């Protein structure tokens, strides 16, 4: 545990070392994304002359858009995925392979440390926006949502680790990350709430572990779904974690066998 906390602390120190980049990543980028998404939803509802869509009103979509971009940012992994790929591709992974800490564990600790500080610095923004626009928000549900998000982040990291391990075989795989993240955003319901999809797509999407990345936490926080429905996402994450974990282990072990310790 001590080494995990130390690695998490290192992530916080490294990221806050570059203050401007940190501010853009944690505050400005979610604000811009939120503004774009809110504009799209409001324009859509006004343009179509609708008071409700799928049984939910303007305020509901406003709250969804405000939280979806914030939570979507939190549950997206690109920086540490990129770093893991770079470490494998360039051989800098050597520095970790010869230490008594696993590559997966080290980056999981870093990832969690960074996400924790992201939450601390940016959580006030959607809360403030909901208060200003009188959008529906169940603040009492926030602790449970944050706990589930931390669990989801373990799944997200495992997925990132799996993708990064492909670098053992293909070296340059940096183009995989944006494609993967785009897919996750769609599957998680960041762009469109999953309950708006037609059946049977809707049911399949709600069963997938990705729904726990945006749809379930946002819907629960904004009152779109109840506690029982929200807790279903735990099962989805667990199944996703087991499947991805097994896949990651196979790719990692095979990758190490073909690894040549590049460049040293």
């Amino acid at each position, binding site marked *: 545990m001590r*080494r995990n906390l*130390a690695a998490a602390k290192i992530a916080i*120190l*490294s990221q806050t070392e570059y203050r401007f980049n940190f501010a853009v990543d944690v505050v400005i980028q979610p604000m811009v994304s939120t503004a774009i998404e809110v504009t799209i939803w409001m324009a859509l509802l006004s343009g179509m002359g609708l008071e409700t869509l799928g049984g939910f009103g303007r305020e509901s979509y406003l709250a969804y858009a405000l939280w979806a971009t914030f939570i979507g940012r939190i549950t997206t992994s690109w920086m540490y995925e990129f770093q893991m790929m770079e470490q494998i591709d360039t051989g800098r992974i*050597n520095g970790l*392979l010869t230490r008594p800490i696993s590559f997966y564990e080290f980056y999981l600790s870093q990832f969690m440390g960074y996400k924790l500080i992201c939450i601390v610095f940016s959580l006030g923004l959607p809360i403030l926006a909901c208060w200003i626009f009188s959008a529906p928000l169940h603040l009492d549900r926030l602790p449970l949502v944050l706990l589930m998000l931390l669990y989801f982040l373990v799944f997200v990291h495992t997925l990132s680790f799996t993708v990064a391990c492909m670098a053992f075989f293909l070296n340059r795989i940096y183009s995989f990350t944006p494609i993967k993240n785009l897919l996750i955003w769609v599957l998680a319901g960041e762009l469109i709430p999953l309950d708006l999809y037609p059946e049977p797509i809707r049911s399949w999407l709600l069963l997938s572990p990705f729904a726990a990345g945006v749809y379930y936490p946002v819907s629960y926080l904004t009152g779109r779904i109840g506690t029982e429905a929200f807790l279903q996402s735990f099962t989805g994450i667990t199944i996703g974690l087991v499947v991805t974990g097994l896949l990651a282990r196979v790719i990692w072990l095979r990758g*190490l*066998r073909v690894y040549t*310790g590049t460049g040293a």
Partner: protein
Amino acid sequence: MSIVIQTQKLSRSYETYQRQEGGWNVVKGFFNRQVQVKYALKPTDLAIEAGQIVGLVGANGAGKTTLLKILSGLICPTGGEVKVLGFNPFDRKADFLRQISILLGQKAQLWWDLPAADSFNLLASIYGLDKAQAKKDWLSLAERLRCTDQLHTQLRRLSLGERMKMEIIGSLLHRPRVLFLDEPTIGLDVLAQKTIRNFLTEYVNEYRPTIILTSHYMDDISQLANRLLLISQGTLVFDGALSEFVRYAELQLNLDIKSEETNFEEVIHKFFEKESGGGQNRHPISN
């Protein structure tokens, strides 16, 4: 003396592919790649006793770093057996990793965006060291390497020599029993080389670790090593004491050594010259 490193017919081959120049060959190579198998290390038998300082010398691409990477568990051998401190290195058990260290002179292993002091604290946590004692140790090592002033500067802002000193401290913090040093003085100025050599000499006398050292600077080898391994095109061609090497080279490698005062470094250079001049004869290890 106990054997801490032992290999039997240890080898490593790589699959690579070659592509001819030109646009059409890029297209062809996209669909059909000609795979070639290359031996970086040919079957090698080796036994190293505790406390020995072994100089591993060879030309670029001779297989030195491959051998170090296998011994430290970084890469998997494709043939033969290897035991280091009783462990199979590639299993990378925590108990094994706590007792070894590898320093790759051409590759930064500390954290680029952080001051070295933060990296050392993290390493202390990773190795489960007492934090206060670890701090005392890295401060003492920094003092001996004369780099205390740079401990709180971001690694990326340090000069190559300063960075290498930090890397050395990072690799010694947990007092490894076996230390692999891959070109620790590469690219450094004469003064920095001397400082590092003198520091390593003191460290070796104090803690008696087993060391395998590779370097293209023969001063490193002659000052630190008490045993020499000469490797050429993946094959060990000499294994013995430094003092025996000159005589051996004269007799068995047919090198033209004119003066009786010819030193070890000159003989090594002559050997490399002969090798690069197309010498294809492989010589068996004499001892």
